[in-house]
């Protein structure tokens, strides 16, 4: 009997032991380490299985949810990461970093308002946690609630605990409130708190100087902005700082330098911002095909998480993209007017291009206005009235009656805060009212550091005067001026290049034939080259038609040949002129 009991006991034990072992399974640390090992080897299926097993077996443990969330986040799968971080917060409500993770993911998903709610609760629960406060302040800035953010951080800093991160965020919040003095003071305070020569301190200083540079530029202090950006670059070689430098140079109409800075920024840029700026610059200088190619590169950036760390929202970025495409298509549709139309097929092609490109310009303008309206409503909801007014001005350029109302509000608001902005407002008012006198006043007021704004206003003035049928003597000097500084801007407006031509060599009758050909060609291509001299014209085209030595030269104002070519023997005059014209339009001497 005893043997029987022993046998029975042993059998039961033998059956239960493995079962109990299986029930217990590997512990949580073992499962997590197994998952992490698989993750390191990029065996994601195994890693996922291990994390999911861990979540099933230890439903109250926070680590599996957190680690799984991080795995998804590392793979840019933010929608999948979100529920994991939400679970992690539920499982461990006393860990502020979990709430920070959750807020970050929400922001990656362009759900900034929800992120603000998460961090507001976190700030109530952990009022001394500076990381939570800084992130909340930053999100207040992104959701246009700058005054609320400034109050929050001021209240904390009033306790006398110095914190450089909070100082920097406060500076940003004050810049959003257009409070120059406060913003500058807090940026400088933040810089003063990062004095070490460590990597972290230098990185921090670089960001602060960069922010300060943006502030100075927005208040038209170009020299100070330039100083700040050079300080930023001295602290650390960051792509964002190169970008800011490029923008500064572009504003000052230093196109080549700006392009160089953007290219430098693009080398280490993990965002599409440098490519965007490059595309806009190429567009501005009339290299539209290059600009389109750059714009297509921007489309390759599919991960929007970079937006979290920059002072833009997704709506603002999409608005900027719509603006870029609008400008490029509009310029293309205008520049096509300069295409020679010597045959019926050329006329047909011109018409097709004109209609389709104008349609795309119109389409992107509508998209742009739509985004501006959205941004306006977001800003109004966040209590940032000036931002909303600014967006409504841009959205209503076709409704001057509405746009002028908001422009007036903005002008009143900025008059005392930022007096240097008056030229910009005048120019904008001139465009909306189609009043050349306002544009003339604006052009006179623009400081030299705002070369791009000035030259754009000049190009707009030319278009306006031409459209109003003003005498050529009024606008032709402006054409020469724009051509010398940024000739691409003229082609972008469909304004012909001011080049006079001289025909020499050959017989008188041959010269006469060439002049007739030039006149005919000029009419068809809206080219302004005329067989007579004109005072103040910057470039001269010389056609040497001596038999056997037919060639052409383009001379600049100083008489230096900047471009030359050969006229093929037996080539038709129209074809030769078209070749020359296309060469000049490409402006190879500029590149």
């Amino acid at each position, binding site marked *: 009997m005893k043997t029987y009991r022993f046998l029975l006991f042993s059998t039961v034990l033998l059956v239960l032991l493995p079962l109990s072992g299986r029930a217990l399974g590997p512990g949580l640390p073992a499962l997590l380490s197994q998952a992490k090992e698989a993750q390191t080897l*990029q*065996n994601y299926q195994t890693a996922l299985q291990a994390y999911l097993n861990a979540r099933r077996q230890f439903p109250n443990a926070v680590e599996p949810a957190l680690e799984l969330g991080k795995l998804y986040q590392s793979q*840019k*799968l933010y929608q999948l990461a979100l529920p994991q971080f939400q679970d992690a917060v539920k499982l461990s409500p006393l860990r502020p970093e979990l709430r920070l993770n959750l807020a970050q993911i929400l922001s990656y998903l362009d759900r900034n308002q929800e992120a603000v709610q998460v961090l507001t609760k976190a700030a109530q629960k952990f009022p001394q946690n500076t990381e939570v406060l800084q992130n909340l302040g930053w999100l207040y800035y992104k959701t246009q609630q700058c005054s609320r953010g400034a109050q929050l951080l001021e209240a904390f800093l009033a306790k006398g605990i110095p914190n450089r991160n909070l100082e920097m965020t406060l500076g940003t919040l004050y810049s959003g409130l257009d409070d120059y003095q406060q913003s500058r003071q807090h940026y400088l305070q933040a810089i003063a708190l990062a004095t070490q020569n460590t990597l972290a301190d230098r990185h921090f200083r670089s960001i602060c100087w960069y922010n300060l540079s943006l502030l100075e530029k927005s208040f038209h202090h170009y020299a100070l902005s330039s100083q700040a950006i050079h300080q930023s670059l001295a602290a650390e070689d960051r792509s964002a700082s190169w970008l800011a430098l490029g923008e500064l140079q572009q504003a000052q109409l230093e196109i080549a330098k700006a392009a160089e800075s953007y290219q430098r920024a693009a080398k280490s840029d993990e965002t599409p911002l440098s490519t965007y700026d490059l595309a806009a610059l190429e567009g501005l200088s009339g290299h539209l095909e290059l600009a389109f190619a750059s714009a297509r590169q921007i489309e390759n950036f599919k991960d929007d998480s970079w937006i979290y760390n920059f002072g833009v929202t997704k709506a603002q970025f999409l608005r900027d993209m719509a603006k870029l495409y609008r400008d490029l298509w509009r310029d293309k549709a205008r520049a096509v007017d300069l295409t020679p139309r010597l045959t019926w097929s050329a006329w047909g092609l011109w018409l097709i291009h004109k209609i389709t490109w104008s349609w795309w310009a119109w*389409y992107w303008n509508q998209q742009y206005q739509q985004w501006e309206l959205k941004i306006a409503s977001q800003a109004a909801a966040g209590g940032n009235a000036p931002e909303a007014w600014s967006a409504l001005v841009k959205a209503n350029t076709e409704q001057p009656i509405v746009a002028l109302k908001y422009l007036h*509000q903005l002008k009143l608001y900025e008059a005392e805060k930022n007096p240097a902005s008056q030229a910009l407002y005048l120019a904008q008012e001139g465009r909306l009212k189609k009043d050349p006198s306002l544009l003339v006043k604006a052009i006179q007021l623009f400081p030299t550091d705002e070369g791009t704004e000035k030259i754009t206003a000049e190009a707009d003035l030319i278009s306006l005067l031409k459209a109003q049928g003003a005498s050529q003597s009024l606008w032709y000097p402006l054409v020469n001026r724009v051509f010398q500084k940024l000739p691409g801007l003229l082609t972008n407006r469909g304004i012909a290049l001011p080049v006079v031509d001289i025909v020499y060599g050959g017989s008188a009758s041959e010269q006469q034939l060439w002049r007739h050909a030039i006149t005919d060609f000029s009419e068809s291509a809206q080219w302004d080259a005329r067989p007579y001299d004109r005072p103040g014209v910057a470039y001269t085209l010389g056609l040497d038609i001596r038999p056997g030595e037919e060639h052409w030269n383009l001379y600049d104002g100083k008489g230096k040949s900047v471009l030359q070519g050969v006229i093929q023997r037996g080539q038709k005059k129209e074809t030769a002129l078209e070749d020359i014209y296309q060469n000049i339009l490409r402006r190879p001497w500029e590149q």
Partner: protein
Amino acid sequence: MRNWLRVVAPLYLTFHAALGLSNIADPVSLTLGVLVAHFVGQKLARQKAWVTLSILLGIYGAFWGIFKITLLFWPQSLGSWDYWPTLVQRQLLLLGLPFVLFGFLAYAGRTKPQFLPAERLLHAVFLGLLFWGQGGYKILFYPHPLWEALSLCLFLLAEAGVLWKKTRVQPASVWLPATLVVFALGLGLLWSVLNRYEEASTVSGGGLLKPQALQFDFSPLIRLESRISLDDKLILLYREDGPPVTRYLRRFVLSGYSPQKGFYLSPQYPGEAPQQVGQTPETFSLRPEDDKARVEVQQEYFLVNLDPSSFLCLNDPTLLQPLKRWNQSTFVNAYRVVSKVPTDVLWQIDSVQHSGLPSSEKAHYTNYGQQSWLKTLALSMIGDSQTPLEKAAAIEESLKTQYWYSLNPGPSEGDPLKQFLLTTKKGYCTYFAFAMALLLRSVGVPSRVAVGFYTNPDEGLLGFYPVRAMQAHAWVEVPFQGFGWIPFDPTTDRLAPGETFRNPPQISPQQMESLISEVLKANPHAVAAPAKPPKPWQNFWVNVQNQAQHWWPLGLLLLVILVNLGLRGFWRLRWHFASPREKTEALFRRYCQELRWSGRLPLKSLLPDQVHVTPLGSFLASEVSKARYAPQYTTEQSQQAWFRFHESSPVRRQDLGAKILLTLLIPPWFHGKFPRRFS
């Protein structure tokens, strides 16, 4: 009725155009605007054309006037109303053309019925413009292309309905040949359109993929095209653990060759049968002697835009496990494949002299059409190479370094391959694969062409990799004794001078995420092997079920047609066995039904007197009276009624479209409601 049908097309076109401009257009307000224009146009049918046009322009101008006047009195205070002007102006601008155009078309069609065909033609042009180049159209509007096709069918039906009109009776000797001619013309047109579509799609699929009923699959026969373009449509996702590497996902191996056809599938040779994914697991045996230097790799495939039965795998598969389907799946099929993949083999096969193929197969794999110029070229390329590997490497190297990649190799006057190898020296992957396979064959080294996809390891997320149509690729496989078929990719990465290659944008993480999360949520398991091998009809039935998930609306339509045809058969059967009296009564019922459906009489009410609207009605009414009440009613009398009915039934007086529609969709009732008294 016709006037109601006429409104369908303008509304359909406007609504879809507005959907296409979803960010800026409001489909509802634009469609309503067009509806107003249509009815205004119809109401002005008695006016002159210029009056109508002026009124339409006037109404549209009035909209603008109201808008502009409102702006003049626009409040000076700031408020949410300031958001409206931009939105309203945009809708007004967008409404302009459709308002005037569709309003005027409505007028023209009502005033002059002969204009109706021209109006249909215009609609067809608009429809073409609407669908022109709408790559993501179905994704925007419909969950599946079939819905798009169905909505289009409804549109076309409405358009056809407008054109149906009563014409005078035509004898069968006239309408039958005419119908046949129309059918033949229609079929010819359809055939040419399909061919054109297929060719265009093959070109846009990189020359390798060809469409099969709205999805792609590889062609089992590849030719050299003069031009191809690249489509970045997502074809499938595959999942593989481990560090990301470039993979060659094989669909077919093509070993048959003739100079006229190019390379084609030869299913009689081992490993080359057209492989389909069934519903049960399947194992493939790799010859044990070919098993050297291979590692096992497991992959899961999730097909999106590919024929669901397509089997893709690595070289060479050993196990195929279909994965269980889940509800509302985006994927048309999913399966797991375990393959044994050659790894680090080149140094091991360096000295291998033999292919390991049986002598019976060697002739097949070395057939190069006996083109002597190929052999001459191959000999110049291989120089003093001795082993098959050295020869393959030399040819691969020559192709990679002396030729250029081009999507536009240009039209050839004779043999495109000869032109590629000797003259232009530029082509796309198929040219390179053709060339290498044939050059190798010409010097006695067996080879075959493989087609499938190459993959981009940089695009992986969580072990999932997207594969797009533009990644379709062709390469070469060469057998080595003990190691099996080893892949070689001779396609160069040197772009032909003057040509640019556009790298398409990567698939967005958002799009990938929705697909990945669907797979993770479903967590599909492999289908277990059945105890007994499935019968062919079982597989067929499961395939039908799978296809039905997407094609059920079409299936429903087919069912209705089948049931109707069955009923018609039944009617004929009943007719055959019926007495002369019953036959005449049944004929009369059918006449009444056709009279109702042909629109000659209201659908619901058929009063006794109304049957006399046609001479046939009067005749049949009197015949039915005789059949019911005469003491004798003969077969001859019944037959006479039948002939008369067939000569002049209301259906015979309809257009061909109406006749087909009635025959296919409206069941004939042998018994049913019909008037008992006739006069």
